[in-house]
C-alpha cells in the first residue's frame, strides 16, 4: 500500500509537468501567439501521428533496426576495446585520447562521407550509430574495470586465479553497473544517430521521412516524427534499465536491505 502510494507520488509530478507543458503549448497555438505554420498545436501533432501511423511505423522500423544493429555493434566494439585497453596499459594510453578526439567530430559532417564510402544501404547508418554509441560504453567499461579495488584483486590472486578468472569473477561483474550506465547514455543517443544519418542520405527511416515532411512544410508531421523518436529513445532507455536490473540482482537487494539494516 505505501509502496503503491510512493509510486504515485513519484509519478504524479512529472505527469503534471508534462500535462502543463502540453497545455501551455496548446494555448500558445490556440491564441495564435505563434503563427500556426511555425508551431503546430499538440492536437494537430497527435492527429498527424494517428493519420500517419502506418508510415511512421514503417520508417520507425527501419530506424529501429539500424539503431539496434548499431547499438549491438557498438557494444561489441566497446567491449573489445575497453577490455583490451584495460589489459594493456600502453594501448589505453595510446588510444584513449584518440577516442576522445573521435567524439568531437561532428556526425553531421561525416554522415555524408560515410554514405559516399559505403553506399545507400544500412551500412553507413549503422556505422554512424556505432560511432555515436561506442564511446559512452567504452568509457563506462574502462571506468568500471578501473573501479575494481586492489584488495579484491589481491584476494583473487591469492586464490591463484589467472587473468581470465579474475576478469570473469571480478572485473566484469564489477564493471557491469558502469557498463549499463554507459549503455543508457548510448541508447539515448543511438536513435538520434540513426535519424541524423538517414537525414543526410537514405530512402527509408524516420530521418528520411523527416526531410520529406519538412520539405512539404508539414510541421505537424515533423513534430509527430520527433515525438516518435523521443518515444523510441525512452523505450530503449527503459529497456536498458530493466535489463540492467535483471542482470544485477545484487544491486536492487542492497538498496532494499540497506533501509532496514543501517
Amino acid at each position, binding site marked *: 500500500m505505501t509502496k503503491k502510494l510512493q509510486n504515485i507520488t513519484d509519478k504524479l509530478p512529472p505527469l503534471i509537468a508534462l500535462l502543463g507543458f502540453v497545455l501551455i503549448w496548446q494555448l500558445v497555438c490556440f491564441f495564435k501567439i505563434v*503563427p500556426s*505554420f511555425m508551431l503546430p498545436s499538440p492536437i494537430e501533432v497527435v492527429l498527424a501521428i494517428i493519420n500517419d501511423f502506418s*508510415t511512421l511505423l514503417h520508417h520507425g522500423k527501419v530506424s529501429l533496426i539500424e539503431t539496434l544493429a548499431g547499438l549491438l555493434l557498438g557494444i561489441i566494439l566497446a567491449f573489445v576495446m575497453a577490455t583490451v585497453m584495460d589489459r594493456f596499459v600502453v594501448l589505453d594510453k595510446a588510444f584513449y585520447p584518440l577516442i576522445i578526439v573521435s567524439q568531437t567530430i561532428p556526425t553531421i559532417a561525416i*554522415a*555524408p562521407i560515410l*554514405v*559516399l*564510402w*559505403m*553506399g*545507400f544501404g544500412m551500412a553507413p547508418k549503422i556505422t554512424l550509430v556505432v560511432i555515436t554509441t561506442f564511446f559512452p560504453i567504452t568509457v563506462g567499461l574502462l571506468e568500471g574495470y578501473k573501479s575494481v579495488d586492489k584488495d579484491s584483486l589481491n584476494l583473487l590472486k591469492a586464490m591463484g586465479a589467472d587473468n581470465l578468472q579474475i576478469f570473469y569473477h571480478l572485473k566484469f561483474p564489477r564493471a557491469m553497473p558502469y557498463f549499463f550506465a554507459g549503455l543508457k547514455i548510448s541508447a539515448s543517443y543511438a536513435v538520434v544517430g540513426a535519424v541524423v544519418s538517414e537525414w*543526410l*542520405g*537514405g*530512402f527509408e527511416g524516420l530521418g*528520411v521521412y523527416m526531410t*520529406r515532411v*519538412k*520539405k*512539404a*512544410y508539414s510541421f505537424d508531421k515533423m513534430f509527430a516524427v520527433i515525438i516518435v523518436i523521443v518515444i523510441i529513445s525512452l523505450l530503449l532507455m527503459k529497456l536498458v534499465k530493466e535489463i540492467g536490473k535483471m542482470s544485477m540482482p545484487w544491486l536492487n537487494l542492497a538498496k532494499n536491505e540497506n533501509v532496514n539494516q543501517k
Partner: protein
Amino acid sequence: FKMGNASKNENKEKKEFTKITFCLDWTPNTNHTGLFVAKGKGYFEEEGLEVEFVQPPEDGALLMCSSGQAQFAIDAQDTFAAALDGDKDYGVTAISAILQHNTSGIISRKGDGIVSPAGLEGKTYSTWESPIEMAMIKNVMEEENADFDKLKLIPNTITDEPAALAAKQTDAIWVFYGWGGINADIEKVDCDFFFFRDINPVFDYCTPVIFGNNEFMESNPEITKAFLRACKKGYEYAVENPDDAADILIKEDSTNSLQGADKLVHESQKWISKEYISDAKSWGYIDSSRWDRFYKWLYDNKLTKNNLSKTGYTNEYLSE
C-alpha cells in the same frame, strides 16, 4: 567501393538482369517522370536492366556516381563546374540532358515588382551562397543596371516556396518553374517569375543532366546505351501522355512523397512535358554550343580556374 551493384543478378529462373543504381538529385518530381515511366512501363526490363532509384545525401548525387555507389546520377551543369575545375578527376561525364533549357528563374510575390531583375534592388533574396549563383544574380541585375549590393541576402532554408513567400520569410527565391512556379499557381499564391535565360542567353545551360561513371561506361558501353535508350523511351512517352505519365510517376515513387500532390504533379507534368525535348533533334541531346558558352562565361568571370569549355560531356551514348 567496388562496382558491386553492377554485378549480374544470380537469379536463374528469370532472365538475368544488370543491376543499375541511379541517384536522383532530389525527391522524385516531374524532372524524373521519364525515368519512372521507363521503370513502370518495363522499358528498362526490356533492355535487361534492373534499375533502383536512390536519393543522395545533401548535394551529393555527383559524388555518389563518382564513388561508384551509383552508376548514373542527376546533377546540373552549374554545380558540376566545381568538380571539373579541381585537380582531381571525379571520373564522371554528362551523357544526357533531361531538359533542353534552363527552366530556372526567380519567383516573387505579385505586387512586389520583381517582374525582372531590376526589381530585386532593395529586396531580400534567399541564397545558397554558391559563387556561381551569386554571379548570375549579379549579372542579370547589372544587365538592367540594378545595384547588386542593394540586394539583401539571407540563407536559403526554404523548401516550400509559395508558403515562404506568403509568410513573407523572403522576397525572392530561385526555383525551377516546372515545379516551384506551378506549385505557386496550385497554392493560389499570386507570383511573378522571370527566367534567367531570358535576361542573358548564356544562362541557358543544361540542367538537370544525367551523369555516368566513366569507369563503368567505358567497360559497359552497351549497357550505358541501353540505359539511355530506355530513358529516352520513357521521356518520349511522357511527352506524348503527360497525364498518364504523371500517374505513373506517383505510382512508381516508392517513397510515396508525391502522394496527395496529384494536382501539382499533373499540372507540372503538363508544362514540363513540352520541355523534355523542346527544340532539340531528340531527347537527351546536349547542345555543345550552349554548354561551352556557359563554361566559358564562368572562366571569363573568374568563377573557375580553368576554361572548362568542351569538357565534361558527351553525346556518344545517345541513340539517334
